[in-house]
């Protein structure tokens, strides 16, 4: 099957899945006992008419199936609706998703930058001091809750005043010039990126190491060595290339988690990301907002798996997609 046909088929398969997800998410939200207009109702100075107008605007006065139908048609037309607090869901989602994406892409970059060489080194120098040290660090990393690490970094920042305490920008951000704004964001990204990198590093380093160890035992590696090839060529040209496949699947998973993986870290560090926005949405029963962010997360997950499968086909011609 040619690649475009395959992609088309996968997208077709994803559509009923997305429909099912939206139905589940909608049911979940409708079951929640939170009243989105509780604050307005509790305020005696807000008139009945104003509340009714608000219900009308948010479509809350219609039966649930009708609400779902309205949501579905407007979403299919590309209109994500309005948020309870006013303003377009699409714009709010874009801002926050952008922040989360920035954080996670930087994390992904550093994770692989460190994990790949560290994994290769550990596999080649198996049992040596550094391998054991990496083993210990990854064991800690795999068990470390992100929020605990975030707290520890916050304490470090409080003690030294070298790093900002949470947030994404300084208070005078708007008055700065572009270069200084970029530097300010980078400065605020240090803690969240360190936290997330440390935690996700562990799994990938272990995976690289164990894949490479498996491959280094293969017959063709022995043949390559017997031919008299240098150790570098054996490892980087023969072994590593064959050990890369499971890592690509892993990369697909990581891509899928780009938007939702860092939610707790974002909340602890007061980073204005999608996780915090979704939590706010759930707590105020902001239907359009929560539906949109859940659907966005699901689309990312499905896309991530598809991208991983395509990458696998690209890197390994033995694999055929079907």
């Amino acid at each position, binding site marked *: 099957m040619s690649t475009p046909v395959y992609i088309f088929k996968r997208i077709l398969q994803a559509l009923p899945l997305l429909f099912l997800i939206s139905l589940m998410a909608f049911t979940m939200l409708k079951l929640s006992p939170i009243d989105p207009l509780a604050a307005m109702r509790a305020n005696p100075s807000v008139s009945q008419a104003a509340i009714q107008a608000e219900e009308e605007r948010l479509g809350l006065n219609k039966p649930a199936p009708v609400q779902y139908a309205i949501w579905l048609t407007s979403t299919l037309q590309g209109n994500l609706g309005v948020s309870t607090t006013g303003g377009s869901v699409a714009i709010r989602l874009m801002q926050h998703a952008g922040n989360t994406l920035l954080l996670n892409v930087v994390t992904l970059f550093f994770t692989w930058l460190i994990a790949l060489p560290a994994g290769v080194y550990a596999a080649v120098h198996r049992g040596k001091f550094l391998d054991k040290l990496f083993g210990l660090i990854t064991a*800690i990393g795999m068990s470390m809750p992100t929020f605990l690490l975030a707290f520890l970094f916050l304490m470090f920042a*409080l003690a030294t005043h070298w790093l900002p305490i949470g947030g994404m920008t300084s208070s005078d951000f708007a008055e700065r010039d572009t270069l200084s704004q970029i530097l300010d964001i980078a400065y605020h990204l240090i803690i969240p990126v360190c936290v997330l990198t440390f935690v996700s590093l562990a799994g990938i380093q272990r995976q690289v190491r164990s894949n490479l160890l498996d491959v280094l035992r293969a017959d063709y590696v022995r043949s390559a060595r017997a031919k008299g090839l240098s150790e570098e060529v054996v490892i980087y040209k023969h072994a590593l290339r064959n050990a890369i496949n499971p890592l690509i699947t892993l990369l697909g998973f990581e891509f899928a988690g780009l938007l939702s993986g860092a*939610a*707790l870290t974002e909340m602890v560090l007061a980073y204005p990301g999608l996780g915090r926005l979704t939590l706010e949405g*759930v707590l105020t029963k902001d239907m359009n907002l929560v539906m949109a962010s859940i659907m966005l997360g699901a689309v990312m997950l499905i896309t991530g798996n598809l991208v991983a499968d395509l990458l696998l086909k690209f890197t390994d011609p033995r694999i055929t997609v079907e």
Partner: protein
Amino acid sequence: MVSSAAPQVSTPARVKADLKHTILSRMWKDKVARAALIGLFLLYFSALFADVLTPYGMEFNDPNVGNAPATLLHIHNDNGELCLPYVYPVKQENDPTTYRQTFSEIKTAKYPVKFLVKGESYKLLGLIPMDLHLFGVDSPARIYLLGADMNGRDNYSRLYFGAQKSLTIGFLGLFIAFPIGIFYGAMAGYIGGMADNLMMRFAEAVMSIPSFYLLIGLAAVLPLGMTSSQRFALITVILSFISWPGLARVIRGMVLSIREEEFVQAAKSVGMPEVTNIIKHVIPQTASYVVIAATLQVPNFILAESGLSLIGLGIQQPDASWGNMLKAAMDQPNELLSQPWLIAPGFLIFFTILCFNSIGDVLRDVLDPKLSGGR
């Protein structure tokens, strides 16, 4: 040793017992696994006997010492000589200009730390009425080894009561999620065809919702005004709900290959009903994977519970859980340096997960050498 004259026959039961024996002894030989097993034993023991081991009950509060720092244990008397530990009561003062609370010791009378004292009454294991505490001091002095929270409750004691929630939720979750996951996966794999297809699409749909969003969405569904044990039970159900599909998918894959094995086909051909066949022949084959997956799944439950409670959707006050105790740290990050004990529950979560992961790793090496990946 007296041995029977007849040659030993290895009955299936015997083989099973031997296997169990070797698994446990091989784990015990591994230093890391042994340390982790001991660590977990201590944690669960502390949670089980929390009432005895702690000086105060979970809801005991002294509003006069809200946010008080850890009680100082003095071991020198007035002449500077070593003596049995004693404490002073503390007094709270508010600085009128900075609005900061300060605490100072009232050094008029010493209150020695007593062991096995009578204190608040409780029911040990929910059954035996008792009022004995491992240690404590006389009122009005307080022994708060890790300081007080904002309501004047003892953080140290609450860590033990929090452990009861946080540590059991992992296992309770397993008992719900695993039977569902295993049976669902086994059914889908065994029946095959259209039913398999539909069942797996549904599992995929659950898996395709980012788990944290699903978690907060489901937690928001919980009705307000439930009792704490109802809430605890429902949160366990929620955690199970997001974790069964992954297991079901793997089990299905395993069942697809197991059902082609001769012994399953043989049982089928002599007329064994399908459900019996699945339960008796197919599911037991997945046992070693399930055991490993279970060990590695407990940390996820613990993490999910603490994450939920941390953002205020999980276990609610006045109940303690490690997650909702950490909430204090999240709400007042600027106090982290002056009250570093606020993140103590985080370290306990870390330690618990480390133990489970270490045991899971060793268990994998022991049960399934194929999976160990050259370690």
